[in-house]
């Protein structure tokens, strides 16, 4: 069991999706994340073990390598693809309740702003870390955040902005989330933001990168 989960973890780390994928060259013709996940489940290894001892350790190593400058964003995305491809096989177990996400997070780019690449990367990193992300897209109003918080019973929201102008729209959104919902943690990010700005609008936290938010969620949030 150990062995197959370790192999799975390595496939995620290296971004080996399935047997036919030629990347990485030194793993050519070997089974990939998809085959190993299927094999593990067939062998009776629980979905929980596949997730916690196969997928997540792989992505954790990727996150650390990225943080230490050993790899760049493209490699994180390659690993994320391997993980999400294999994750499809675990979907039924999420539905049945046999396994669950660490928690649910709402992400959106604030009103007036249409820049979504940064937010998409945050989403992907959080998913890779075992969190479920509800992506509200771009140009998201306070109203829409609040409706989604209520309908999805979510306790953590991440807001993104590209410009100093649209960043100002975060102020009203944070204020309304704080006054119209209970105990929701608001995390902000995006190129022009600073910790000082985040503090000034009463956001609970600011991170310059997705890994910072993931570490924060993993350490601080128990849902």
């Amino acid at each position, binding site marked *: 069991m150990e062995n197959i989960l370790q192999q799975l973890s390595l496939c995620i780390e290296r971004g080996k999706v399935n047997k036919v994928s*030629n*990347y990485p060259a030194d793993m050519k013709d070997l089974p990939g994340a998809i085959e190993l996940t299927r094999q593990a489940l067939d062998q009776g290894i629980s979905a929980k073990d596949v997730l916690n001892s196969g997928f997540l350790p792989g992505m954790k190593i990727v996150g650390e390598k990225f943080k230490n400058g050993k790899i760049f964003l493209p*490699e994180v*995305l390659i690993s994320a*693809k391997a993980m999400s491809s294999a994750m499809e096989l675990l979907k039924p177990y999420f539905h049945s309740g046999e396994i669950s996400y660490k928690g649910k997070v709402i992400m959106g780019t604030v009103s*007036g702003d249409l820049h979504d690449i940064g937010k*998409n990367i945050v989403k992907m990193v959080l998913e890779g870390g075992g969190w479920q992300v509800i992506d509200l897209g771009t140009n998201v109003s306070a109203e829409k955040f609040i409706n989604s918080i209520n309908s999805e019973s979510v306790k953590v929201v991440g807001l993104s902005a590209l410009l*100093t102008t649209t960043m100002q729209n975060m102020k009203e959104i944070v204020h309304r989330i704080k006054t119209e919902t209970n105990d929701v943690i608001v995390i902000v990010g995006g190129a022009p933001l*600073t910790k000082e700005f985040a503090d000034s609008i009463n956001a609970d936290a600011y991170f310059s990168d997705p890994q910072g938010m993931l570490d924060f969620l993993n350490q601080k949030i128990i849902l």
Partner: protein
Amino acid sequence: MDSIISLKQSILKDFQIDYNDCSINENKIIELLGYNDDTVPETVEESVKYILNELPGKVKLHSGYKIFNPRKVILDNNKFIIDNRLFNCGKIIYSSLKKSESISFLVASIGKEIENWSRHFMDNNEMLKGYLIDKIASELVEQLADKTEKFLEDDLEEIELKATNRYSPGYCGWSVSDQQNLFSLLPSMFCGVSVNSDSLMTPIKSVSAVIGVGKQVEKKDYQCSICDIDFCYKRERNA
């Protein structure tokens, strides 16, 4: 004085540029991603190749500039005014513009389709391609702006005028909200670009800038050393 006479009225030009006149180089992209020839993962290299191959069919390179009639332009006290519209460009940019006889605006955009193309990959578990398209598109629009800047300089040279560096609202301490005034002095949808009430341009891959024009002005190495904005990337691009 000759130059002012030859710039009696505003000049407006726009260009539809062929992709081949403004292409981007694979190695440059690899380098921008943080790699070199030896370290780039094959799949990244292949994806970049694929994207660069398809790119010409996905972009519409549209750019232009407007040089204002010098009589409409006033430069004073870290600000400039054109046609009664005030631009608070701040100390850093003003110091470069102050000897200008006139001001020009530049707009460059590569169109909207590229956004859908990137999103299509993002939505289909191809984050790498989605991200690379976004990155390449940003580089392309900067190159288009460089090319347009060159057109402007060439045109100015004919009337014996020179240009300053180009400065964009949102850089060097100049507020992005001055985009409102900038676009109000250009024809509507100039180069296919519009600006919303939060000063964001659509299509996203668009750039706007101001360039000072005159006999006495000069283009310098970008003046990062006198600016203290630490989240600015020009510092890296010009390093």
